[in-house]
């Protein structure tokens, strides 16, 4: 089983604050982390390798500092890492990102399964995983909460739905996007950390991949951000303290008309 895990380095959105004066994002001091959902993809990639043998390669497309994220993935047990970084990729939307990542995966060639987190916490689109699968023309299963079994070149997985889950069988190679329920990511061991420190990270630029130039970066991105603004702040609420009999009566009076 050779596995490729796609990860993204994102700003820790829980630390993002709005400057009350200028109404812009304060980015200073905001830490970069591995997208929370990708942690489950890394863990699953490592577990599958431990169970079935083979190797787990982690890849990331982003600025040079995304190398930190790749080293963290190695410390959790990934064998190899590849950074796809070039100024030509700047401004990529989900279509251009999916294309670029797919071309990098084509270059790696030998894989049975690609794992992605269900979405990234900065953009929340959930579009890149299925985008990669489509570019590579392989089947996908999204929102996977459990890999039941892998045999005879097929994987049987549980896919979350609004009402519960479906048991889906897919041929390999395939791409899975995973949700939190699939596992609990491990804390890297000391040995893992040492390995990550010394690991050699492969680095690919646009020129290293067989890319069509007009499908890259800003030029290859059909969507344009035309305006960014801060949402209007929520008005200050009515917060009631005191005797629960009284406070609940007031709240029910306030809300009942808005519920009918």
């Amino acid at each position, binding site marked *: 089983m050779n596995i490729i895990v796609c990860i993204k380095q994102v700003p820790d959105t829980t630390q993002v604050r709005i400057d009350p004066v200028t109404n812009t994002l304060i980015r200073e001091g905001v830490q970069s982390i591995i997208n929370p959902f990708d942690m489950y993809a890394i863990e699953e990639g490592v577990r599958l390798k431990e169970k079935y043998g083979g190797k787990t390669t982690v890849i990331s497309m982003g600025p040079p500092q995304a190398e930190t994220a790749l080293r963290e993935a190695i410390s959790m047990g990934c064998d190899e890492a590849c950074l796809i970084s070039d100024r030509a990729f700047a401004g990529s939307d989900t*279509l251009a990102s999916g294309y670029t990542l797919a071309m990098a995966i084509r270059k790696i060639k030998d894989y049975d399964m690609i794992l992605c987190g269900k979405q990234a916490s900065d953009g929340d689109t959930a579009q890149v995983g299925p985008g990669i699968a*489509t570019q590579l023309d392989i*089947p*996908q299963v999204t929102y996977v909460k459990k890999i039941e079994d892998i045999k005879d070149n097929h994987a049987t997985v549980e896919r979350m739905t*609004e009402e519960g889950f479906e048991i889906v069988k897919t041929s390999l190679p395939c791409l899975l996007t995973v949700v939190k329920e699939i596992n609990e990511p491990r804390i890297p061991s000391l040995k893992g950390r040492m390995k990550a420190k010394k690991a050699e990270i492969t680095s690919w630029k646009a020129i290293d991949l067989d890319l069509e130039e007009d499908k890259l970066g800003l030029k290859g991105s059909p969507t344009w951000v035309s305006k960014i603004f801060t949402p209007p702040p929520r008005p200050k609420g009515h917060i*009631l303290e005191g005797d629960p009999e009284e406070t609940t009566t007031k709240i029910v009076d306030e809300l009942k008309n808005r*519920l009918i």
Partner: protein
Amino acid sequence: MSIQIIKDKCTGCSLCVKVCPFGALTMVSKKAVIDLDKCTLCGACVDSCKFNAIDLKRDSSKTPNIEEYKGIWVFAEQKKGAVQSVVYELLGKAHELSEKLGSEVSCVLLGHNIKDKAQELIHRGANNVYVVDAPELEHYLDEPYTKAIVNLIRKYRPEIFLCGATFIGRSMISRVAVKLHTGLTADCTGLDIDEKEKYLMQTRPAFGGNIMATILSKNHRPQMATVRHKVFKEASIDKTRKGKIIEETIPKTLLTSRTKILDIVEEITSTVNIAEADIIVSGGRGLKGPENFAMLEELAKVLGGAVGSSRAAVDAGWMPYSHQVGQTGKTVCPKLYIACGISGQIQHLVGMQSSNIILAINQDPCAPIFTVANYGIVGDVFQVVPLLTKKFKAALNR
């Protein structure tokens, strides 16, 4: 832009002839021949050819014949034959947009034995319903659904394509956008038409709802967007509305799938699906144990709502993950969100702060949940929640 058949590679299998929506391909002496007057360079044949025998050179910076794309399409997601409510919400918005564009609203309905649902969509405001009825489409599967939709979009060329940001919608729509090489915007909370250029203005939250961005796809069609549940108002039912039902057949070769559903398991029984609920009563660490969620279920029952949970309660094993609201769970925007014993970590707030009304109940007056709440009660959840249940029951006559 150009298209040609590489004669040496063509085996004469005629798959491309079957998939061409425009009848532009024929077989002459066991080789495919393209009628360039009929060909729109849509690329359906290129996707179907197993021998890479069709060479299509396209300028990917702009959709060819962009001015010919007209009308708004809505994906009519159905499960077990029931049209999902988000479809009616999309129809309401699509109707509004169509008035600004002076165009028609159409639905595309895929499934098996679902033809009778087309009339419902017309009553909700669809001018046209394109129906594909095939046993392969009974349950949602990525590959046949994607290929059927791509086939119809290539044939009819809508200007805008809208889809619910559901598990099915989000899995399918990105595949469709890649195949068509067009722009896609996820989870829009606002859709409007630019007055001058007639672009679809797609507004969505980013960075956990801290900023809003308006996104355009200027040079590509269709302009595609997904919308979450409960963001737009449902289109009303008017049984006098008339519309056209167009039955479409998709070549069987496009309906094959490399994934197969072995079983469908429904877990959520006592409570409604939180993504679709108008009212959500959520509990957190302050509930102290799984048994106390029964109290929330009672309140939810009186209000006709669903029960949600914070991450803390899910991680403690008190509630299943499918109920988790927040960054690593579901994002919800109900009409009323009642947070009981939830302190309001930012990861929770990003999943519910776009709710219409928020009522927070917490012992700690400094809990961050009160910063986003419209109403708050500082007090003991074990006293407050049963009192609310009792009083809502009386006030609402339930």
